[in-house]
């Protein structure tokens, strides 16, 4: 039951032997094995005791790390309780029953870490002499060490060791790894107890101080820094300094995760049979693989599917050859909260990362969640921002979320949190369960109850997922029920808090109702690159002014220009680009360059929004799928054109939005001339081109793009004109030159008489 671990590196064999024999002579019912971990000694250790309980484990290591040596020992140990001691410790011959009591206390969980207080022996007593001497003599000669050093003899259960991720392998040399371990045991909710020094006596045999060794002082300083700065409780168990075996399924070469340890994170995916489930589920799973060195497992809970569907799901998941364990489980009755609770029960990870089968994790997700626990060891969970995308239309909405407090959840406005961005400690989810009485909305109810229980759920200050909207979204299909259940949960909680407290929360929510800043602010164009290749319908567009410099002239093999010297387009529209510094609204470059763009991406010239004097743009035909749109964008990029992608739906919405005529201001006593609507943008440019380039008329004209259900319509509009006669004569001149009728308008584009 009890495995004693003695980590050593280049220690004299006689010392180790004395330590080992002192433990083997104990009258203990629990000591079942003694493991001596030779952590990369120059010469392999050879200690012969003749006792079958003794084993030597040797691992090659260039750097001495007492912490990692203990971890290696525990990994090889077979007992449920571990005692760790140093090779310079001798235990009193009569300490057996006391040791057994300490083992029993750690085994039943009443004590997390049992420590023994050491007595420092003087230089005059050697190891062998101390071994032979009686406790009474050693007690009188030695000096009790204060209860701050914890390394002499520490007893803990394997469960505790696993629960906090063992000793931290970042500690090199020796020192502070024991204090750090004890502190983490304590913070994990377990008690640290010193066993009475009269009952459990250990003696520290004198040896020359090891502070003089090369680099020892620097290492100890670095260790102190680690212990001070990192206040987290759970640390992933890593093999950093030795050739000890790693976890077998880690083929990526990225991971240094120790074998036989639970995964750090369980990815919890609740999945329901529906259209395109497998396609979406595979994308969701793949988005997690490769994060945090694959120190994870994935549990997929099938939620109420038929036998055939479940078998099909299992078969398909088996085909995914992943470097992480993937476990399907089944909930027979369709219930999302029941599926989530089932995953919590099955989870082996220290944390549960909530995921939906249709969402895609961003590459930073798991790392950012874990960073929250490093920053605040008392945190119970974290959540982050999310980016909604519509699989059909490609619409994108960026949501930061808000700080999750009881006040904001009860009385806050807008989008505060999204369930698939959540990440909780497994022990927390085992205590605060999803409510299976609620078919929908159990996620919001859980968030409320967690906040009410006083749990701290931190924001990652980053976007963590791409949340997919599609025809079979639960959020879409069951929105009404979700809202109703959410209100019920709120009502239940408000009632249990009382009106006075609720008033206080309402005021506090108003004061702190603000969005969180996400540091990984992602450009929309970058988001489109992260979408599935088939998602959305897109339009590529760019302002025509970029064509002036972007498109290089066509050349033949000899480098001669293939551009016609006097193309028709240039001759017919000599002033197309205008003679002002900025491009004239409606200006069109020469048609040969446009042709090259059209060869690359089919499209037309038009506007991208309603407005006045907005530059015309080249707008592609709708492109189905993000991959196709991105390919087209890349090809334009090769021509030197930086084009922008906009979802077709968004684009159509924008073009339907009419020109705000109320913004068309005319000074008091003046009027403007407004042309009849023109449908073709090229007709606008031609009409403008007919006005003499140097005339005042050309300078005062503007172009209005007005979005309608049928597309954009354009108007030419003059600057403010004072006096009836001036307006009349200008209208006549404009009509004569451009062949377009004009009317007189006042403020807001309202027609008025001459």
């Amino acid at each position, binding site marked *: 039951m009890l495995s004693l671990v003695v980590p050593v590196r280049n220690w004299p064999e006689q010392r180790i032997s004395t330590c080992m024999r002192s433990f083997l002579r104990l009258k203990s019912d629990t000591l079942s094995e003694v493991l001596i971990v030779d952590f990369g000694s120059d010469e392999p250790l050879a200690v012969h005791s003749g006792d079958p309980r003794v084993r030597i484990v040797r691992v090659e290591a260039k750097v001495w790390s007492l912490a990692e040596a203990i971890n290696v020992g525990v990994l090889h140990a077979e007992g449920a309780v571990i005692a760790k001691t140093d090779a310079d410790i001798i235990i009193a011959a009569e300490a057996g029953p006391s040791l057994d009591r300490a083992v029993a206390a750690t085994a039943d969980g009443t004590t997390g870490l049992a420590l023994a207080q050491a007595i420092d022996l003087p230089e005059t007593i050697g190891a062998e002499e101390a071994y032979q001497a009686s406790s009474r003599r050693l007690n009188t000669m030695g000096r009790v060490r204060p209860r701050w050093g914890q390394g002499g003899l520490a007893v803990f259960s394997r469960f505790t060791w696993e629960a906090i991720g063992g000793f931290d392998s970042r500690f090199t040399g020796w020192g502070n790894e024991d204090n750090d371990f004890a502190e983490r045991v*304590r*913070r994990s909710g377990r008690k*640290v107890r010193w066993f009475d020094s009269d009952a459990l006596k250990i003696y520290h045999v004198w040896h020359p101080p090891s502070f003089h060794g090369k680099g020892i002082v620097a290492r100890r300083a670095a260790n102190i820094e680690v212990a001070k700065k990192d206040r987290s409780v759970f640390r992933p168990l890593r093999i950093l300094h030795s050739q000890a075996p790693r976890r077998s399924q880690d083929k990526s070469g990225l991971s240094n995760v120790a074998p036989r340890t639970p995964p750090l994170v369980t990815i919890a995916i609740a999945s329901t049979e529906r259209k395109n489930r497998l396609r979406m589920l595979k994308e969701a799973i793949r988005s997690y693989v490769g994060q945090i060195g694959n120190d994870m497992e994935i549990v997929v809970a099938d939620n109420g599917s038929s036998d055939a569907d479940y078998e099909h799901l299992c078969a398909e998941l088996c085909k995914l050859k992943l470097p992480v364990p993937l476990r399907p489980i089944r909930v027979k009755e369709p219930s999302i909260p029941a599926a989530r609770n089932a995953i919590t029960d099955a989870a082996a990870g220290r944390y549960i990362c909530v995921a939906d089968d249709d969402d895609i994790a961003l590459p930073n997700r798991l790392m950012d969640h874990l960073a929250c626990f490093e920053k605040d060891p008392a945190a119970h969970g974290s959540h982050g921002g999310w980016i909604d995308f519509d699989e059909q239309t490609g619409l994108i909405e960026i949501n930061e979320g808000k700080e999750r407090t009881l006040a904001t959840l009860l009385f806050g406005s807008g989008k505060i949190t999204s369930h698939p961005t959540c990440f909780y400690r497994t022990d927390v989810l085992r205590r605060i369960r999803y*409510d299976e009485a609620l078919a929908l909305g159990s996620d919001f109810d859980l968030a409320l109850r967690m906040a009410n229980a006083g749990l701290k759920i931190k924001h990652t200050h980053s976007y963590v997922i791409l949340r997919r909207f599609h025809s079979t979204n639960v959020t879409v299909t069951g929105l009404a029920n979700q809202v109703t259940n959410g209100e019920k949960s709120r009502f239940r909680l408000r009632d249990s808090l009382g009106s006075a407290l609720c008033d206080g929360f309402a005021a506090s929510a108003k004061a702190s109702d603000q969005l969180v800043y996400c540091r990984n602010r992602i450009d929309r164009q970058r988001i489109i690159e992260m979408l599935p290749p088939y998602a959305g319908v897109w339009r590529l567009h760019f302002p025509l002014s970029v064509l002036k410099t972007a498109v290089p002239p066509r050349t033949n093999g000899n480098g001669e220009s293939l551009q016609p010297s006097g193309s028709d387009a240039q001759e017919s529209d000599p002033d197309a680009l205008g003679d002002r510094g900025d491009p004239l609204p409606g200006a069109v470059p020469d048609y040969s360059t446009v042709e090259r763009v059209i060869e690359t991406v089919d499209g037309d010239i038009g506007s991208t929004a309603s407005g006045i004097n907005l530059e015309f743009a080249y707008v592609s035909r709708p492109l189905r799928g993000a991959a196709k749109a991105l390919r087209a964008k890349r090809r334009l990029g090769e021509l030197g054109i930086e084009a922008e992608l906009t979802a077709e739906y968004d684009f159509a919405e924008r073009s339907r939005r009419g020109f705000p005529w109320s913004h068309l201001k005319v000074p008091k006593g003046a009027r403007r001339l407004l042309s009849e609507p023109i449908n073709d943008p090229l007709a606008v440019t031609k009409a403008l081109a007919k006005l003499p380039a140097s005339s005042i008329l050309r300078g005062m004209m503007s172009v209005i793009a007005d979005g309608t259900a049928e597309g954009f319509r354009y108007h030419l509009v003059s600057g403010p004109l004072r006096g009836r006669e001036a307006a009349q004569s200008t209208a006549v001149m404009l009509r004569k030159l451009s062949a377009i009728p004009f009317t007189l308008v006042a403020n807001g584009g309202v027609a008025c008489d001459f």
Partner: protein
Amino acid sequence: MKLDLKQDLALGRLTLTMTENCHGDSQPLVDTIQFNRFHEKVASDTAALAGAMIASRWCGEVIEFSGFKVGSDVAEAVRLIVPDARFVQPIDGFRRNLCEGHLHLLVCQPEEAASVVDSSLSNRGLIRLVTWSGEFVCVATGSSAGRIAGEISTNADILLPDWETSIGLGLLVGGLRLGSILIQQPEEEHVRNVERIAAALRIVGVQLRTVPARAHERNDSIRQRTVAGEKELKPTTRGKQRPPLRLPALAVV
């Protein structure tokens, strides 16, 4: 472990914060226990006992109360409640706040109230029923079906079993007038702990009694509410305090 007690009578909230101040202390899942809709003014001596009970699993060798002193009898009871605590402070040995108790409290969750009240036959006169609710979703069933809001709501049951939460709440509500606390009979595995707490409370003159629940009646009442469907979410008690129940006799267990 340092226990910091704060009460806001206007808001109706009582909070008890567990602060580590000793090497042997460990951190509980949540360090602040709240009691909402709590409008009774708490007495320091019984609050100390309630606090000690809540903190007992995480408390090391020292237990310290912030802002008030306890009498030596209370300190002795605290040592019994927290077996690891060797040092209880601050103690004022000459204090004796607890008077002859005359208030009998029956403390339970609201959905248990019907069966417990029915089985607690009393000949002592007035017994006040105090109902509390905590986490709405039961860990065993994963469902909130049948659970309703009580007079007082608390998050103490995140850390403690229901019977311990009931005793703690009884001590806080009863204060100096407290004579006895009646709670629902806990499961077999907790009987020894209940005896230990009862022995501790006897030191300060408070009697702890357990009342058997009528299991079949309880199940029936839950079933009725479950059948009611959505109605089960609606709490039955509102902010007002219930009048004391007049019960015919008291069953001493």
